[in-house]
C-alpha cells in the first residue's frame, strides 16, 4: 500500500533523514519510534501525502483512503462536534452521513457534548473528536502520529478498541512509547 525508495527529507541545510526504504503491504502495521524531534512527524506527514520528500520515490494510495491525525485534532474550535463531523462526512462523501456521525459521536463518548462548541471541550475530548473525524470515512490506511499523547484514559481505551476493530487495515503509527502498540507491529522503523 505504501512504498518508498531512498526517501530523503531536508529542511534547508538540515538533513532530517535520507536513504529510507519503506514497504508497508496491505494489512501491515509500521511502528515508527524515536525521541521527540527525531523526524517521526516529518516522515508521517510525508507518508500521509501532506509533505513532499526532498528526494526518493514514494507510492501512496489515493487521498480518499488515507486518514491522518497528529498532535492537533484538526477540527474547528468554533463549530460543534456534530458540525465538525458533518462537514468532513460530506467532504468525504460518506453514505448516510447523519447516522454515521451519530454513531461515531456515541462510540467516542461525545454523545452528550455533540452540540457544544469544541472550544468548550477538554484536550482529551478534542483529540477524541479528531480521531472520530479520521474514522468517519472508514479509511483503508491510518497514519497516526503520537495518537495516545493527547488522549485521556477513556480516549486511550477507545483507541485500543479501534486498533483492534480495524485489524487488517494498514497502519503507520509513530510513538515515543512503543510498549502500547508493539505487539501489533509487523515492521518497525527506529529514528535515532
Amino acid at each position, binding site marked *: 500500500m505504501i512504498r518508498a525508495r531512498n526517501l530523503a527529507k531536508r529542511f534547508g541545510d538540515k538533513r532530517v533523514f535520507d536513504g529510507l526504504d519503506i514497504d508497508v503491504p496491505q494489512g501491515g502495521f509500521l511502528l515508527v519510534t524515536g525521541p521527540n524531534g527525531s523526524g517521526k512527524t516529518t516522515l508521517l506527514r510525508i507518508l*500521509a*501525502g*501532506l*509533505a*513532499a520528500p526532498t528526494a526518493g520515490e514514494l507510492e501512496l494510495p*489515493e*487521498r*480518499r483512503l*488515507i486518514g*491522518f491525525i*497528529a498532535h*492537533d485534532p*484538526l*477540527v*474547528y*474550535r*468554533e*463549530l460543534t462536534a456534530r*458540525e465538525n463531523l458533518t*462537514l*468532513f462526512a*460530506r*467532504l*468525504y*462523501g460518506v453514505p448516510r452521513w447523519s447516522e454515521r456521525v451519530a454513531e461515531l459521536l456515541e462510540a467516542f463518548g461525545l454523545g452528550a457534548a455533540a452540540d457544544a*462548541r469544541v472550544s468548550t471541550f477538554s484536550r482529551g475530548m478534542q483529540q477524541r473528536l479528531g480521531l472520530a*473525524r479520521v474514522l468517519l470515512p472508514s479509511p483503508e490506511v491510518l497514519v497516526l502520529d503520537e495518537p495516545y499523547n493527547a488522549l485521556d484514559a477513556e480516549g486511550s481505551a477507545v483507541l485500543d478498541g479501534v486498533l483492534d476493530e480495524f485489524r487488517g487495515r494498514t497502519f503507520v503509527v509513530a510513538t515515543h512509547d512503543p510498549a502500547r502498540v508493539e505487539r501489533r507491529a509487523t515492521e518497525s522503523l527506529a529514528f535515532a
Partner: protein
Amino acid sequence: MSYVGDVATLARKDLLLELRAKETLPAMVIFVVASLTIFHFALPTGSGEVAAKGMLWVALVFTALLGLNRAFVAEREQGVMDALVLAPTDRSAIWAAKSIAVLAYLVAAEVVALPAFALFFSGLDGATVAAVALADIGICTVGTLLGAMAVAARARELVLPLLFLPLAIPIVVGGVGASVGEGPRFLLFLALYDAIFALVAWASFEYVVVET
C-alpha cells in the same frame, strides 16, 4: 461529493464560523465608516465629487484587506488546513468557498459603506454600484488566493497588503473610471480583470496549499 456540493459545504462552514465569531464583519464596517470620516478631513475644500469617489475606492480596497487578512486564520491557527487538503475534494473548492464567504462579508460591509458615502459626500449612481459589484468579485477571488499564500508566511499581516495592492491597482482604475462616469469600458475592463484572474486563481490555488 460533487464539486458544487463541496463548495457549498465549505462555504456554509465559513459563513457559520464568521457568524459565530462575530469578529471580522463588525471590524470591517467600523473601519470603512472611520475611513470615510478621515477622508472627509483629508480632502481640502473644493475637492469635488471626483476626488471623493476616488477616496471611496481607497476605503473599499483597505476594508477588503482587513477581511482578507482574517480569511484563513482559523485554518492555520487550528491546523485544520491539513485536514481540508487531505480530503478527496478538489482543492480549488476550498478557494471558491472561501472567496464566496469573503465576498459575503465585503458586500455586507458595503451595504453600510455605500449609503454612508452617499450621506457624507455625494450621491451614488448605477455605474458606481455596478463597478463596486464587479470589483468585489476581483478583490475576493484574487485576495483569497493571496491570503492563502500570506498565511503560510511568517509576517503574514505585513505580507498580504504588499501582495494585494499592486494587483488591486487595475481594480481601482476600473472602479474609479466607472464611478466618475468615464464610460462603460471601465466596467468591461473590470469584468475582464475578474474573468482572467479568477481563472488563474482557480487553476493555481491547488499549488498554493499543497506541497506535493
